[in-house]
């Protein structure tokens, strides 16, 4: 009875929302700020990837907030899980192929991760995507050797300093008399690797932070495997 009601209500809400959404002019968005940003982004941020301009320029504080959320959830997970470590050493290791595959892939994934981070202002991708790949790179060996442990101390160092450097770059702009998180050092080299001023630096911070954050989250989860 209750479940049927729930189902019907969910369906009803879905249809209602659909009816509302069908009033939208799909495929021809008003793009009030979108058009403006497209027009001004190259001059104001120097990044070829306009999404990057938005993420690190126009809406940089959103990005800061989102980093903080990741950080908050990592810290909270630390609070929740960190009380008693149940070592997972008893688990069996992966086979030879898994282990050596993990070791082999590690440098490759690191490279790809950093490549994506560094080209975030030019091509699709960026700090988040690259950071996730970095985290995956660290995660692979953990899967292969469940007994192994990540170095939490250095991870938290990276976490802290990467996040801090994002803010410090923003504050540095204030020292220069500009606004907080205002892009600086914009050269007229649109489309090249060294362009877009401080944006790649921000993305590097984001990438490191995301990587460290996710890696520490995942390793915590794996280390606190629930007992029977």
């Amino acid at each position: 009875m209750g479940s049927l009601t729930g189902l019907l209500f969910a369906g009803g809400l879905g249809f209602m929302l659909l009816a509302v959404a069908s009033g939208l002019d799909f495929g021809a968005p008003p793009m009030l700020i979108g058009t403006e940003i497209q027009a001004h982004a190259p001059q104001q941020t120097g990044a070829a990837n306009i999404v990057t301009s938005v993420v690190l320029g126009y809406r940089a504080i959103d990005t800061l907030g989102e980093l903080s959320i990741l950080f908050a959830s990592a810290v909270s997970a630390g609070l929740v899980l960190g009380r008693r470590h149940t070592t997972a050493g008893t688990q069996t290791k992966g086979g030879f192929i898994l282990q050596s595959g993990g070791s082999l892939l590690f440098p490759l994934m690191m490279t790809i991760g950093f490549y994506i981070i560094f080209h975030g202002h030019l091509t699709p991708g960026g700090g988040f995507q690259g950071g996730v790949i970095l985290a995956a790179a660290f995660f692979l060996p953990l899967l292969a050797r469940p007994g192994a442990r990540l170095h939490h101390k250095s991870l938290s160092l990276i976490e802290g300093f990467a996040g801090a450097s994002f803010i410090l770059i923003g504050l540095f702009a204030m020292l220069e008399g500009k606004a907080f998180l205002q892009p600086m050092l914009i050269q007229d080299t649109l489309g090249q690797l060294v362009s877009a001023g401080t944006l790649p630096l921000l993305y590097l911070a984001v990438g490191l932070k995301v990587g460290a954050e996710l890696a520490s989250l995942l390793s915590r989860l794996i280390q606190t495997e629930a007992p029977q």
Partner: protein
Amino acid sequence: MMLTLLDELLLFSGATLLVALFIGRGLAAGWMVTILYGGQLLALLKMAVLGYEGGTIASSLTLEVMGQALSWRFDALSWFFALITIGSALLSSWFSCGAWERSYIRQGGNIWLFHTAMALNVFTMLILLASGDLLSLFIGWELVSWAGFLLMALAGGVAARAAMRYITYAMAGGMAIFGGLALIYTASGSLQLEAVTTAVEQMSGAKLWLLVILFGGGFGVKMGLMPFHLWQAPAYAETPGPGSAFLGAISSRMGLFAILLVLVKLFGIVKIESLKVPFTLIDARDLLAWIAVFTIILPTFTAMKQNDARHLLAWHGIGQGGYMLLGVVVADAMGGAGGLLHVFNHATYQAALFMAVTAVIYRTGTSDLNKLGGLVVRMPLSFVVLLIGIIGLAGLPPMNGFVSKWLVYRSLLNQGMPLLFLAAVIGTLGTILSVYKLIHNIFLGQLRVEHEHVSEAPWSMMIPMLILSAIIFITGLMPGIPLEWIASVLQTVGLPVPDYTLGGVESSSGSLDMIWVIGVLFAGFGVGALVFYSAGRSKRVHQLDNYAGGHFLSADVRYQYSDNFYAGLMHLIGGWYRGSFLWLERGITSLVEFLSLGMQGLYRRANAEFYLLTTALFVIAWVVI
């Protein structure tokens, strides 16, 4: 800044509070506070021009908060009520000093809290009486409510529970007034007193009804009007003795003050009369009158059943409030004067009665009417005080209660309201019967063995009681003294003024001259005494040197029947007022409890996501469709 006379009074009263608060633990604190009450009385008497000639004296303190101007001032109405307030506080406080205070401390009472609470009550009442606009009226009202709560609750135990009950009623009343205030503010955009009149002019019938119900109900709670009367008797009775005297004398009259100010002065009786109860022949004014009459009858007969002297008196206090409202609602010259005079008279005899009972408790340790008796030989002066008090309460000559009740009856007859008159007379009958129970069970009949060595109440308690008795008699003899103040009050609230003389009132339909009445009465007494002393010779014997039903008496035989007093009458009428609206209170309590249980279930058994889904669905459906 020049201090006005009102400022002086309020400062004096505030100073009393501070003295009680900070040095109330000291030895002579009670005396000091009493002297300060005397000072307040003097400060009030400096404003006597209000009582005799009318006019207003404003306080120099004004405030403006959130666009609302607050002001305070005194007029004849305030002055009259303030006189009773301070007078009863002075005498109650005097009564509490010395012997009573020591015994209270011995029994573990906190005398500091008691004095502070009394002083706080007086202070807040003066603030209420001084209110110069509706907002300050409401502020004063709430302050008085909470101050009263403090005084009622401080004894703890049963008293605290009674006080809890009181504060729930008082909050409900306060919120009704708050709602009424909001309605007036909406209609006229202001909370000055004149705003009420303008608001009333504009309002439609339904809104006006609502307003009358809100204000009448709100103020009525404090007066103990039916059906909001249940809280009052236990709350007043369980307060420490002098506190009972003070509360019983004046506290619930604050409700009458507010009714006089808002409903009579600002609304106008005419306006109230114009509100018809749908489908019947009566109007709002008749409704009020009938509520008043039922407030007279039911609590009075409930009082008759009480076995605790304090509770008995407290129930009567509720009933007597009905006479005051009845007089005021009839609103002709005699009725208005009678109602207001009864405020004064009631304060005097109620205080005296509570004090006498407290004196008995002080000596015997009980106020249980079934455990007392025969004290007249041990405490003759207290007996006299109680006798004078109950004559006043019953409304018999030569005491002051007679005058005010006579005026009310006269006005009922003059205005052609025989049914109301009849009902009021039934109430008086009940009063007479029950006060006889009071004096009989305490003072008459058999002296109990354990009370053999009881002595008269100490002078610190006796003097205030005697002063009150004197006032009761003198204002009974010369009602013109208070009537002079009441004339200004009536003028202030816009009611007609009777022709009064020192001995009573004069009117075409019937005059009363108490000096003459009492003269005749005393002549009669004299004749009686002459007959008594000349005809028979009485002989004083020990109470056991006697016989009943053919048997000689011994100490273990009870020949005073105080249990199941008025058994026949109770059997006859007991059925139809049993419970007396208790069912209403219980019903509301149970309803709230039931709803509360449901709400907790709502939160505890929550499938929160389901709530969210449902709400989202319904609100969106509501706006989309």
